[in-house]
């Protein structure tokens, strides 16, 4: 077998920007020892209005587990003060699942024998029309990482089609250079989410065996390049369960925090995905990240970053999601299909992971109303 490429070395076509954020996050991650945090530190963090990174670290620690109820009360209060009772709704549309990466936990990985497909412009139009007819006004477009099968022009064209039907177009596609983000912004996208998966570079290298995604720093700086390319906001996530979830959640929150400090106008968002089973591997699971730990992460994110949007994924079940929006999450997906297409007719390509909440847009809408919360279909105007 050929030796694997160095995961910390950029490839020639990858833009390098001047930034020290990666070093800052990795240093803080290395210095964070969750088991060393005390209950007293957690209590003090819960009394502060403006939390510092060390307070956030304490809230993610095992010492905070017995104080989860207190965290939930505080987080609910902070969330309502910031967002009122508004909960944003959106849905993802997977455009293509072709992928040149080999990431061992992902259903789209290039070694997994699944049905591959990509939507052509006519199919994208039809899918988006079908989604818009459900009442949604925000769409998230996703692809696998294949510069051959889903290049920038293809994604840009999808953004232009999406802008005709939706007020807000977000992207969750492979990282690109600043000029690439500027192009996609021009095409109508204004929010970019990139999951770093794990912030432990060594662990990252054992999970991302081949393909451009293997290059850790290029992925890390995607959000910063997106902001430099003119995007309004950026989303962050660690895929909880790949490595020490406390350290990964700490790193993702700190990453978002540092980016907003550097670019104060940037809107930031966090997602809280846990590992899910995939086609041809039902053994993949989030290990030590049970619902209590996941909720602890969501609450800690909320208290550390009161102004960030927090999205709750369909990887979680109905009961957990409906409670998460009461306590800290501010955004929820609905009517989700994670295969290629699947809104207008049967999906033509296989899915990325198994979802746990298959409710329609109307069902989620009604569930939000049923909790005295207000569904918000549109929360931005692109001018």
């Amino acid at each position: 077998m050929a030796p694997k490429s160095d995961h910390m070395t950029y490839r020639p076509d990858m833009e390098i920007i001047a930034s020290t954020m990666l070093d800052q996050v990795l240093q803080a991650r290395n210095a964070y020892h969750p088991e060393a945090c005390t209950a007293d530190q957690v209590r003090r963090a819960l009394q502060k209005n403006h939390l510092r990174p060390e307070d956030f670290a304490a809230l993610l620690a095992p010492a905070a587990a017995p104080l989860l109820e207190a965290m939930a009360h505080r987080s609910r209060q902070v969330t309502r003060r910031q967002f009122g009772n508004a909960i944003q709704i959106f849905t993802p549309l997977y455009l293509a699942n072709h992928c040149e990466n080999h990431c061992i936990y992902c259903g789209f990985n290039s070694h997994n024998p699944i049905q591959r497909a990509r939507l052509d412009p006519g199919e994208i139009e039809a899918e988006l029309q079908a989604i818009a007819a459900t009442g949604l006004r925000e769409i998230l477009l996703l692809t696998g990482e294949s510069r051959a099968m889903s290049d920038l022009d293809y994604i840009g064209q999808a953004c232009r089609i999406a802008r005709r039907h939706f007020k807000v177009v977000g992207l969750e596609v492979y990282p690109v250079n600043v000029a690439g983000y500027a192009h996609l912004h021009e095409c109508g996208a204004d929010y970019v989410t990139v999951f770093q998966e794990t912030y432990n570079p060594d662990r990252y290298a054992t999970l991302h065996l081949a393909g451009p995604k293997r290059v850790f720093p290029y992925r890390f700086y995607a959000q910063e390049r997106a902001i430099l390319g003119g995007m309004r906001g950026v989303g962050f996530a660690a895929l909880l369960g790949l490595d020490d979830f406390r350290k990964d959640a700490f790193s993702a929150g700190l990453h978002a925090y540092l980016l907003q400090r550097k670019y104060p106008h940037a809107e930031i968002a966090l997602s809280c995905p846990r590992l899910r089973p995939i086609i041809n591997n039902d053994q993949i699971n989030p290990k030590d990240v049970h619902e209590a730990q996941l909720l602890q992460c969501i609450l800690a994110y909320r208290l550390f970053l009161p102004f960030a949007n927090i999205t709750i994924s369909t990887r979680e079940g109905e009961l957990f999601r409906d409670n998460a929006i009461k306590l800290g999450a501010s955004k929820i997906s609905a009517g989700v299909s994670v295969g290629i297409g699947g809104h207008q007719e049967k999906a033509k390509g296989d899915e990325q992971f198994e979802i746990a909440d298959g409710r329609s847009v109307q069902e989620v809408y009604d569930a939000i109303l049923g909790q005295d919360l207000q569904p918000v279909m549109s929360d931005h105007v692109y001018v």
Partner: protein
Amino acid sequence: MPQQDCLVLGGHSFTSRFILGSGKYSLDLIEAAVAKAGAQIITLALRRINQDGQANILDYIPKGVTLLPNTSGARTAAEAVRIARLAREMGCGDFVKIEVIRDSKYLLPDNAETLKATEILAKEGFIVLPYMYPDLTAARDMAQAGAAAIMPLGAPIGSNKGLSTKDFIKILIDELDLPVIIDAGIGRPSQACEAMEMGAAGIMANTAIATAGDIPAMATAFRQAIEAGRTACLAGLGPIQATGAAASSPLTGFLRDE
């Protein structure tokens, strides 16, 4: 009959001095909140308008209430101007509350960009109400640029902290000929009352009402507090006695030449 005490904005008169926000509570409650608040002006974020769609805020605002669309989401004067024009095209009228914010954490306004947007929109015939940080020079420039009122923040949006910027707001009230409407941070009716006693022309509140246990009841409380503060301001507050009693040997007791 005594002349009615009105808030005048761009030639339009309002008997209510309570501008109600609409963004943080259930759409179903807007009508009741407006009624209890006695509000004649309601703000709404243009970004929340979902024409012909679900949860469209415009469908929930009672007829006869003046809309005050805001430009939230704008990061530059140019974006604020485009949002304001869009609001007018969508039939929201000529009022606009300019919000230009380049700080996603505290949502503090950018006075320089707000001034630019004020100038452009006032020339286009909008009735411009700029949300701003209470800085006298910026406020004077906004007045000069054609603002119909000035809307300084009392404290950061959503903080419910009250009049953290009290001294600076008092300066604006004393020095400007325009109405000064306190826009953000008012968390309790007593704070609204205090601002009105100081001479504020009106109060805009959203979070304080939206996060109350009983939204229509809190809208009532704010209406009463604002009315009380206004009446007190017009009545003229009595002087506050300095510490200690009046001196028994007056400092001016030496004056003889009558």
